[in-house]
């Protein structure tokens, strides 16, 4: 979400836009978030809940949109973006990034900065702006009408809501519990995709067979496009079943926005102001998180690198699976034929294997050893 907002074709401009974003007044950021949702994909006739039409909730009243447009669109950019174009990351993105424990780490950072000077004082006003924006947008009770608001007297705990949503969509909980090592309490819904992991792993294994057999000029080609299409169809059905009529779309948007803010904070080239303030400079996002985590005494997940590597490609893959593209056998070779998608499939297969410890490069009967980067 936020990473998409700063996207630019010029790296220098991208950095400038990121710093602008961190410096912005929280009301401005709130306006950007509301506008992004207002401009969401809305293809007429597309399946409600699917990527091309995430929900059909009533739009902002015209006078509110006019206000937002005036606020963020002085250069006419909101009109350039146009309605029906904004598509955010899949919920799996939020799940994978949250598994790094980035939220717990930065929550402790903010706690220390607002309660004393254990970490020193913020080194500049940009760090201070980041602290204010992060606290106000993500650790306060959101405006009750905001699209980010997922808190009420019925579901007062944001983290429990996110865990509930992850469990419903993927049948998985986060890999960490409470700070004292106990299981995090949250409601596990009966209607959840408990078969997601098993089906997805079979899908990855079949795609790997396709990748390793592609271009075979002799010998047996074990690629089974029909099996891949069948597994893709199962994934498509189970994911869309949780999204019927736009269910979970609003929550997904809020969770993805939250995690993308912290992901962006970690991956800024030349280190974000708050990273500099914490003297946690590094050339890699995962190393920055480890350094920050060490400063505040909260352990980041050892497989952070793998989770971050998985987040983007898995988000795109699941969106395309939800679109039903791989239900058609004719489209399946795109997964293992050399190209941008096959590159990302290799990334997913490799890092999923490392993150889970389960080998996705199994070739029906033959097992290969998982390479670990630890």
């Amino acid at each position: 979400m936020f990473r998409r907002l700063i996207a630019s074709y010029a790296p220098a401009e991208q950095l400038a836009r990121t710093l602008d974003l961190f410096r912005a007044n929280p009301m401005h950021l709130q306006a950007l978030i509301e506008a992004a949702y207002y401009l969401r994909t809305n293809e007429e006739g597309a399946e409600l809940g699917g990527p091309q039409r995430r929900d059909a909730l009533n739009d902002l009243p015209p006078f509110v949109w006019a206000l937002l447009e005036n606020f963020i669109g002085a250069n006419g950019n909101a009109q350039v973006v146009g309605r029906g174009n904004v598509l955010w990351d899949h919920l799996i993105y939020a799940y994978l990034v949250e598994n790094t424990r980035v939220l717990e780490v930065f929550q402790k950072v903010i706690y220390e900065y607002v309660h004393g000077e254990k970490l020193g004082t913020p080194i500049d006003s940009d760090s201070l702006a980041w602290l204010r924006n992060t606290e106000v947008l993500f650790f306060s009770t959101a405006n009750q009408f905001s699209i980010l608001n997922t808190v009420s007297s019925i579901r007062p705990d944001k983290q429990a809501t996110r865990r509930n949503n992850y469990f419903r969509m993927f049948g998985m909980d986060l890999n960490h519990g409470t700070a004292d090592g106990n299981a995090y309490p949250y409601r596990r819904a009966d209607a959840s995709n408990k078969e997601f992991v098993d089906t997805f792993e079979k899908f990855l294994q079949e795609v790997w067979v396709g990748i390793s057999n592609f271009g075979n000029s002799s010998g047996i080609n074990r690629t089974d496009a029909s099996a891949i299409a069948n597994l893709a169809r199962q994934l498509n059905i189970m994911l869309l079943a949780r999204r019927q009529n736009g269910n979970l779309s609003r929550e997904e948007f809020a969770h993805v926005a939250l995690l993308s803010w912290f992901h962006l904070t970690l991956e800024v080239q030349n280190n974000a102001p708050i990273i500099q303030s914490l003297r946690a400079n590094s050339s890699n996002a995962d190393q920055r998180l480890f350094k920050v985590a060490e400063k505040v005494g909260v352990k980041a997940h050892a497989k952070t690198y793998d989770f971050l590597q998985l987040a983007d490609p898995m988000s795109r893959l699941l969106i395309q699976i939800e679109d039903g593209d791989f239900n058609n056998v004719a489209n399946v070779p795109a997964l293992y034929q050399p190209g941008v998608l096959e590159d990302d499939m290799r990334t997913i297969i490799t890092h999923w294997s490392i993150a889970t410890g389960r080998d996705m490069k199994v070739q029906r009967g033959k097992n290969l050893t998982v390479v670990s980067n630890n």
Partner: protein
Amino acid sequence: MAKQTTGQTPNELEVLNTKLLELTKQLKSKTSVARSQERQIKALSAEIEALKKEVNTVNDQATKAVIDTIQKYADLKLKVSGIGLSSEGSGTWCLSTPNSQCPPLKGGFLTT
């Protein structure tokens, strides 16, 4: 008719004549078979050509389906993550931040 040769009896001539007639008949038959086979070969060649065209069409369609799927994925890369922006085009969405504008739309890769 066979020409009478010195030293050959009329009987021998008749035998030779019969043989000649038989050979002519066989030749005609073989020519007919050859022509028939030629026609068959031509028909089969035409059929093979038609099948080749059909296979190419199917292959083209299969290739197009794969290319379209990969292209859609590349579009998602740009649309969802904003990754891969180049001077050839800008993303489908980008909202201005307070002090900077989004890159201008340049068409090309994605123009919607």
